[in-house]
């Protein structure tokens, strides 16, 4: 059992948990993930590590409530336990040692961006952040990201904060078009956002990394549920990734595979909502 030592409500549907998991805390590197199970009958779901505190022996994860498992997780409180918390899994993010990296976080994707930005800063890399959300109330962890970034640019769909538009608009208009020298872009967020970033940087041949978040079962290379096509080859996101060269990822396939159980997920979520409402 893995105790929740701290909970923070970031938005009505986005929760941050600091979890007691000493062994994982000691090992996890930026870019890696853990597999979590909430109940005995529950699914195993992958969640990217948002921070670690090896001294306290804790690992921070952020979850956005989109279905049954994430909602069950989101309702847990400080002092309660997670049934399983295994990791760290996947390869650490490949990080540059110098130059200028733009990190892009969409929605709750800002969470996994945090440790990457922090590690880059500590290596002496100049980091610029771009965060985006539908509206300003859904922007999360902006102050935390600012600690590692020279500047954090904001995009909201409704223009309630920063540029009205998408993170790609900011990336293009405020950085690329201004002639700012960028050595690498790392984008984490919804698949549509990561794909849009990939397409925005492709014409400039600007090296771009994304962190794929496919359906997984074991997370250790055993089942192949997470397979994706990168540069025409099948890769397992859990052991070969989750971070890949954005210009080489088959996003059509990734999006399609991500929806494989959409119908079943709806059934489970509806049943859950009915149970909770009782």
């Amino acid at each position, binding site marked *: 059992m893995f105790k929740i030592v701290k909970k923070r409500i970031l938005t009505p549907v986005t929760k941050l948990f600091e979890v007691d998991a000493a*062994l*994982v805390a000691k*090992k996890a590197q930026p870019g890696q993930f853990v597999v979590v*199970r909430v*109940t005995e*009958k*529950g*699914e*195993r779901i992958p969640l990217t590590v948002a921070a670690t505190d090896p001294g306290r022996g804790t690992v921070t994860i952020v979850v956005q409530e989109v279905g*049954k*498992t994430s909602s069950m997780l989101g309702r847990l409180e400080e002092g309660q336990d997670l*049934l*399983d*918390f*295994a*990791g*760290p*899994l996947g390869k650490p993010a490949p990080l540059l040692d110098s130059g200028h990296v733009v990190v892009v976080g969409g929605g709750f994707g800002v969470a996994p961006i945090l440790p990457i930005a922090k590690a880059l800063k500590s290596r002496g890399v100049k980091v610029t952040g771009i965060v985006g959300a539908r509206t300003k109330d859904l922007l999360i962890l902006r102050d935390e990201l600012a600690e590692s970034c020279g500047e954090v640019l904001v995009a909201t769909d409704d223009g309630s904060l920063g540029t009205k538009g998408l993170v790609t608009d900011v990336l293009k208009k405020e950085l690329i078009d201004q002639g700012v020298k960028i050595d690498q872009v790392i984008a984490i967020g919804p698949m549509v956002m990561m794909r849009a970033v990939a397409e925005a940087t492709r014409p400039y041949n600007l090296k771009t990394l994304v962190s794929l978040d496919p359906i997984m*079962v*074991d997370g*250790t*290379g*055993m*089942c*192949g*549920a997470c*397979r*994706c*096509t990168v540069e025409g080859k*099948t890769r397992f996101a859990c*052991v070969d990734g989750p971070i890949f060269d954005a210009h080489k990822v088959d996003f059509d*396939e990734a999006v*399609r*595979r991500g*929806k*494989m*159980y959409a119908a*079943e*997920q709806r*059934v*489970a979520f509806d*049943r859950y909502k009915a149970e909770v409402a009782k």
Partner: protein
Amino acid sequence: MPIKPRTSMPTQEAEARKRNFNEVALGYREEDAIAEAARCLQCKDAPCQKGCPVGVQIKDFIKAAKTGDWAAAYDKIKETNSLPAVCGRVCPQEEQCEKLCLLGKKGQPEAIGRLERYASDMAMKRGVNVQKPGDGAPGKGRKVAIVGSGPAGLTAAGDLAKLGYSVTIFEALHASGGVLIYGIPEFRLPKAIVAEEVDLLKKLGVEVRTDVIIGRTVTVDEVFAMGYEAVFLGTGAGLPKFMGIPGENLNGIYSANEYLTRTNLMKAYRFPDYDTPIKMGKKVAVIGAGNVAMDSVRSALRHGADEAFVVYRRTEKEMTARAEEFEHAIEEGVKFHFLTNPVKFLGDETGWVKGMEVQKMELGEPDASGRARPVPIPNSNYVMECDTVVVALGTSPNPLLSSTTPGLKTKEWGGLIVEEETGKTTRDAVYAGGDAVTGSATVILAMGAGKKAAKAIHEDLQERAKKA
């Protein structure tokens, strides 16, 4: 005097069982078990025992069974076999002990596996008394780590715990049992049986730590730093093989590992009571013809498929599945398409698999495996419709451990290099056995390897103590 035929074991009727996940074989009743035990000739040299990879004292356990003393029979089995209720169900006895049975020369061999199962089930029903080793046991106060809680690891753990060692099993998944729990379906091996066997090991003092991925959460070097004097790697062969043909990543195409893990470990057959879903296909194609393929195709029927079929590029003769599994599959209505090989998967407009293009094959000269090599017949392609595909072409060892453990050498295909008789790897005080060494094989071979390694670990640690 003519030899009596062996006592048959009651099973669920095929028509009923193909729609439920309950165990197919129901086990002997007491009168069946007594009648079967009575057939044993009690041969002086007990040839059957030479066929058992863990050296069960078959002659003596059946001797006790003949008198109806099932407790004594169980104790005898348990002296050498840590998991008898498992072995009685999933061992390929026909190729091992029963193959060497004298009765089999003139008629049907003694049903050793069924008796082992009966003795174990009775013992578990009665409640097994576990004797913890006393303070004088040779392994007292010394720690051994086991990586992986599958058959190899559980066996090694049991043997070492009996000698008094403090044994910790590190398991990457959330439940113990390895392939016994994620791979072999409930209808062949109820998970409650596996849990009971693991519980008996815990009562013997074995500690199981789930959610620890050796190589990631903790490295082998760190395990030694934690005070463990030896490490046994029973990490299995977890990496699924795919065909590498077009369309393989369409929705609805699974590795057998995923299909079975969702079904067994995650209990997808009880969705939405359990949260993990699986595609309950109507027309399910399983590629391959080993035991895992049989488990997959029979699971597909139980998930409600109208049609579940096997596609295999060789013939019935070259199949690696146990005869009994093949027969059960046929009884349940599984269709077999031999000399047929997929070359391409076809998807519908939403990206779901809707069929596969296959090619007819013929058998040519034997290949490296000694089996006839399948050769494609030109212009023989056609399309088979299906909405779910399970690729069951075998697995290879997961490279996670070898890539994170300095000094640990593997063969080109990933199998750990070990000394055959001891399981010693190329790294000091690290031993290995089971599928991690051999590639996918059987439960009992893995158990045999776990046993050998436990013996070697014990000898080496005692030797080291003497020197110190």
